[in-house]
C-alpha cells in the first residue's frame, strides 16, 4: 500500500471510525447515549439560524462584486504585475476568489481543470491552490457571527496573509513538482 492509498483510506474511514468509537466507548462506560445525543442535537437549530444575517450580508456583497464585472476588471488590472511575479493569468481569478468564496473558488478550480486537463500543470496547480487554505471571509463570518463579535481586530489581516502565503506556495511547489 503506498502513501496515497493510505491517505485516501484515512479520509474515507475517519468519520465512521470516530462515530463508532465514540458511541461504543460511551455505551461501555454506561452513558445513556441516545438521551445524550438528543440533548446535544437540540442546540443545532438555534446555532444555524443565528448565522443567517452574517451569511446574507457577506454572500450578497460577493455576488454583487462578481456579477457586476468588477472582479473581472480587478483581474485585468493586476495582470501585468502578476506576470512579473510568475503567477499564470489563468489561475488569477482563483487566487482572488479563494479567500472570499469557497464554492465560487471551487467552481473556478473545476473550470481550470476541465479546460486545461486535470493532469496539466495548470490543472494540478489549481487543485493545490484550492486546498492550500480555507475561505477566510466565510470562516470569519461563521465563527464571529455565531457569537456576535463585531470588532474582529487583527483576525482578517492574519487570515488574508495566510491565504497569500498558501496560494503563492501552492503555485511555486506545483511548478517545482509537476512541470516536467
Amino acid at each position: 500500500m503506498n502513501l496515497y492509498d493510505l491517505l485516501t483510506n484515512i479520509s474515507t474511514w475517519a468519520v465512521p471510525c470516530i462515530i463508532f468509537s465514540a458511541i461504543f466507548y460511551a455505551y461501555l462506560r454506561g452513558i445513556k447515549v441516545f438521551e445524550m445525543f438528543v440533548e446535544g442535537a437540540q442546540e443545532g437549530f438555534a446555532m444555524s439560524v443565528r448565522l443567517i444575517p452574517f451569511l446574507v450580508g457577506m454572500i450578497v456583497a460577493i455576488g454583487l462584486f462578481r456579477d457586476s464585472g468588477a472582479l473581472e476588471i480587478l483581474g485585468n488590472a493586476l495582470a501585468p504585475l502578476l506576470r512579473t511575479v510568475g503567477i499564470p493569468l489563468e489561475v488569477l481569478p482563483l487566487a482572488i476568489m479563494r479567500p472570499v468564496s469557497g464554492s465560487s473558488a471551487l467552481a473556478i478550480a473545476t473550470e481550470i481543470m476541465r479546460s486545461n486537463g486535470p493532469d496539466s500543470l495548470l490543472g494540478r496547480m489549481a487543485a493545490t491552490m484550492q486546498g492550500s487554505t480555507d475561505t477566510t471571509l466565510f470562516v470569519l463570518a461563521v465563527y464571529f457571527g455565531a457569537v456576535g463579535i463585531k470588532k474582529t481586530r487583527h483576525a482578517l489581516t492574519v487570515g488574508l496573509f495566510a491565504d497569500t502565503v498558501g496560494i503563492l506556495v501552492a503555485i511555486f511547489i506545483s511548478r517545482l513538482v509537476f512541470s516536467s
Partner: protein
Amino acid sequence: MVNLLWAGMILVAIIVAGLNGRSSLITQSIFSSAEQAVVIALGLISIMAFWLGMMKIIEKSGFIHVIIFFLKPLARWLFPGVPAESKAMNAMLMNMSTNFLGMGNAATPFGIKAMEEMQKMNTRPETATDDMCTFLAINTAGLTLIPTTVVALRAATGAQNPTDIIGTTFIASLSATVAAILLDRFFRLYNHHKKNERR
C-alpha cells in the same frame, strides 16, 4: 477592515454595474445571493444537530481525551488564555483534529461551540479576544491532510491519479498555517507591548 471590504465590494460593484450597463442585474443578484445564504444556513441545521449530538456523547463519556492526547501540548501553547480542561479547549481540539482529516463539515459545529465557550469568558462581548483571533487564524489557514472535495473533483474531471496533489496541498496549507501563527503571535506581542506602554 471587514466594514471597509464589505462596503467597498458593494459600492464598487454598483458603480461598475452601472458603467457596464448591467444595473438591471443588481436587484436580481441581491435576491439570488440572499436566498442562497439562507439555504446554506438552513442546510447546516441537519449536520449541526447530528454533530452536536455526537459531541455531547463524546463530551460526557470522556472519549475526547483519547482523541486529542497528541494535540494538547501544541494547543496549550497556542491558547494561553483558555484553561486546559475547559469545554472551549475540548471543542477547539475536536475542531482542529477533524479539520486536519478533511472533515470540514464536521469541524464547523465544534468551531462554533469553541467560540461560544470562549465568548462566555470574554469581558468585552463585541470584541474578539487574543485566543479567538489565534483560533480563527488556524482555521482560515486550513491545514488539511486530505483535501476531500478537491480530490473528488479531480476524479470527476478525469484525472489519472486524483490524489497526486495531496503532497503539494499539504505543503502549501502547512506553510499557510505557520505563516498565520507567526503573524498572530506578532500581533499578540505588539498589542501587549502597546498596552504596557499606555500604563
